[in-house]
């Protein structure tokens, strides 16, 4: 299983970058326009899953290795908690202590932007991991079944 036809591969190479950039836009502007960490994270995960569907698992894992995905998954959750605990140093849990900035600018609204980015990392990497697990598992079990048939 080395992926799909040349047409699909070429179009995928062309489109994946745009999808990732769009996901990043959705994440970064989550506090000004509709969107946010969840939607943007799922969009980025979709880009990697598209790569995996078109090229097979080797290319997808060379783009985003499994170890990195694990680290990003756990690290996103950890950063979320740390930002929450950072508020404790001043007042209470999840207190918005960062500089609020100017309204309607990208770097505004305190901790909301870092929290969005943390959630996006977490959602994207975890969904990619689950999908890769599903794909690899099915392939292996299928091969085992065929071998059973032959034996």
């Amino acid at each position, binding site marked *: 299983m080395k992926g799909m036809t040349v047409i699909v591969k070429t179009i995928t190479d062309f489109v994946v970058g745009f999808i990732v950039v769009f996901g990043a836009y959705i994440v970064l502007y989550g506090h*000004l*326009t*509709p969107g946010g960490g969840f939607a943007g994270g*799922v969009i980025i995960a979709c880009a990697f899953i598209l790569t995996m569907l078109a090229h097979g698992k080797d290319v997808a894992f060379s783009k985003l290795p499994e170890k990195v995905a694990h680290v990003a998954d756990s690290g996103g959750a950890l950063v979320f908690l740390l930002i929450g605990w950072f508020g404790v140093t001043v007042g209470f849990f999840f207190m918005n202590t960062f500089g609020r900035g100017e309204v309607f600018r990208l770097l505004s609204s305190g901790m909301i932007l870092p929290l969005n980015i943390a959630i996006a990392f977490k959602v994207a990497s975890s969904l990619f991991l689950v999908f890769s697990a*599903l794909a690899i598992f099915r392939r292996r*079990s299928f091969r085992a079944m065929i071998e059973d048939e032959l034996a």
Partner: protein
Amino acid sequence: MTVYFLCIVLLTMGLYCLVAKKNIVKKVLGIVIMDYAVNLYLIIVGYKSGGVAPIIEPDMPAATLERFVDPLPQAMVLTSIVIGLGVLSLMVAMCIRLYEKHGTFDMSVISKLRG
């Protein structure tokens, strides 16, 4: 009232699918449909007639604040959708494991094969 009733119809279908079907994948689909029904219900509860999305724009009259739809259920549903995706992947993983072990998706066959 009528709109709430549509939600109830959707929820009932999901429940029926969950309870009465024998195929595991059909049961999973029933859970997904129930998920959709609950999300739709929460959003409908928060809708204000003639309402606009709760996003503030730079030069907006203050009166528009009164026309915003309810942001609280939207926030709840936003998290609920992603949770639904995670739970769905867990259920599909269980289904695949069951299929690999028993070679079928049929619930009655699987429960007979125990032992």
